[in-house]
């Protein structure tokens, strides 16, 4: 297994797209969060309201999901596109191990980059929001010492890792970049966009049962537009999707002709 891990790690670090992904995760998460935070203000300063400023400082995670989907999908589909997968499986005939190694490396890479991104995004975002009037007494000050803030920051990074693993699994199953990426984007964003337009029960079910439920991990205020699921449970739904896709990929990849 160490040989397979070393081989897959060598692959990952010798293409530019990996460093681009890390940069994109950081830039999209921090950049988009700060952009929205700087455009939002609470007047008069210190007045109360029901804004979820923890979630608001991490809103860039929505966009970072795009980069993560592409990264996870391409880890397999780029090999199918070039035929490199034949070389990979000829060198490492235990295909399940190749999948496991890719999952571990892609997951950890996204988790580390994601955690750096969400921590920076949270700290900088809180400062901008406070300066824009989201300040005590109306809005308590949030720091990384508080449990709910830690859950949101760590949970968002874990969510990105779950999305990457789901993407890896779907990529291995579908073997075509465009097909895999478009089905993932539909899966992630259709419930967000159309969920609120559907009858309430159907819309809620859609939001709870799709991987986007993982975004609930950022929520600290019960608002109307919140995802109707408990934070860790929502993250669990995202990981269940990832696990299901990887398991299915594991069985298919071993049976199918490469």
């Amino acid at each position, binding site marked *: 297994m160490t*040989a*397979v891990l*070393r*081989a*897959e790690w*060598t*692959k990952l670090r*010798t*293409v*530019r*797209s990996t460093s681009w992904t890390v940069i994109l995760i950081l830039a999209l998460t921090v950049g988009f969060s700060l952009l929205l935070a700087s455009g939002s203000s609470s007047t008069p300063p210190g007045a109360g309201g029901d804004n979820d400023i923890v979630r608001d400082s991490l809103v860039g995670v929505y966009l970072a999901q795009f980069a993560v989907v592409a990264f996870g999908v391409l880890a397999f589909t*780029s*090999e199918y596109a*070039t*035929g*490199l*997968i*034949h*070389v990979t*499986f*000829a*060198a*490492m*005939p*235990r295909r399940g191990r190749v999948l496991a190694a890719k999952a571990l490396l892609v997951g950890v890479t996204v988790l580390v980059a994601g955690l750096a991104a969400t921590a920076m995004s949270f700290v900088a975002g809180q400062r901008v929001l406070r300066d824009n009037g989201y300040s005590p007494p109306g809005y308590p000050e949030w720091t990384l010492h508080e449990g709910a803030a830690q859950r949101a920051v760590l949970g968002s990074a874990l969510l990105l890792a779950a999305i990457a693993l789901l993407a890896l699994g779907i990529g291995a199953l579908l073997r075509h970049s465009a097909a895999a990426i478009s089905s993932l984007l539909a899966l992630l964003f259709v419930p967000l966009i159309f969920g609120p337009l559907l009858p309430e029960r159907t819309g809620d079910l859609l939001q709870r049962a799709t991987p986007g439920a993982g975004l609930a991990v950022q929520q600290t205020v019960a608002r109307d537009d919140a995802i109707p699921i408990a934070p860790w449970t929502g993250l669990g739904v995202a990981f269940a999707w990832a696990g299901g896709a990887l398991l299915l990929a594991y069985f298919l990849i071993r*049976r199918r*002709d*490469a």
Partner: protein
Amino acid sequence: MTQPIETLHLTKRFGGRTAVDDLSFGVPAGSVTGFVGPNGAGKSTTMRMMVGLARPDGGRALVNGRRYAELRRPLTEAGALLDSSAVHPGRRASDHLLWLARSNGISRRRVEEVLGLVGLTDAGRRRVRGFSLGMRQRLGIAAAMLGDPPVLIFDEPANGLDPDGIVWLRGFFRSLAAEGRAVLVSSHLMSELEGTADRLVVIGRGRLTALTGVAELLASAAGGSVTLRTPRVHDVMRLLAAAGATVTTDGPNVLHVSGLDAARIAGLTAERGLPLHELMPHRATLEQAYMQLTRDSVEFGDGSAW
């Protein structure tokens, strides 16, 4: 005795079509075996089953007596070049070889060695995107050689190579065989294997058509003719025709003879004291011998046509 590569009743179906049909042959060590057949005959599918990429529907393909999927460090047992475009364009050539080396516990030093072996030392740090088809082919050969394997499998390796490259490739295959390795080289062009292969496995529509040594095939091929020059054209013509040969002429003093070999012609003319200025036998080319072989097999193999 088991041979380095063996297929036993190997069969593969795609939907209703049988791509490889009950194919059994062996590839011995110390020789270059040409694997020949028209496009779509099942050569690539057979090779993909040899290295575990496709699952046979029947029979087995064995490398060093075992199924490829059971090999723990497969690159040290069999090297294969199936498709030279199968590299990530954004990766440096040496990094492509490095991950392959890592996957089978092969040292980093070996990467430089195989780059040198195929003449890519200077291009090793370049990204594969900028490689010509011939350079990619060489990179694929370097990858196959990484584990210094006793078995080598090449699918259409001459594709995209320039004439220099093809000459180099022939010498390379011969030296691999001389080192005692078993080399299997597929081609849809018989002429590419002339002077390279010792043995031939010929398939058509997934079935074994012929399994023969190149020397035997050439010797058995009919259609060899002899060209000769003589100042006594008419006498020689009459003499040889009487001996059963077919004789034609297409220039002053020149005769083309078929049906008699050069030794027989020389003997007959010497008996009559007829002078010969030149006596030149034409051997059938491998291509011609192959065409004859496949034509025969089509005629004899497809009984329904009669």
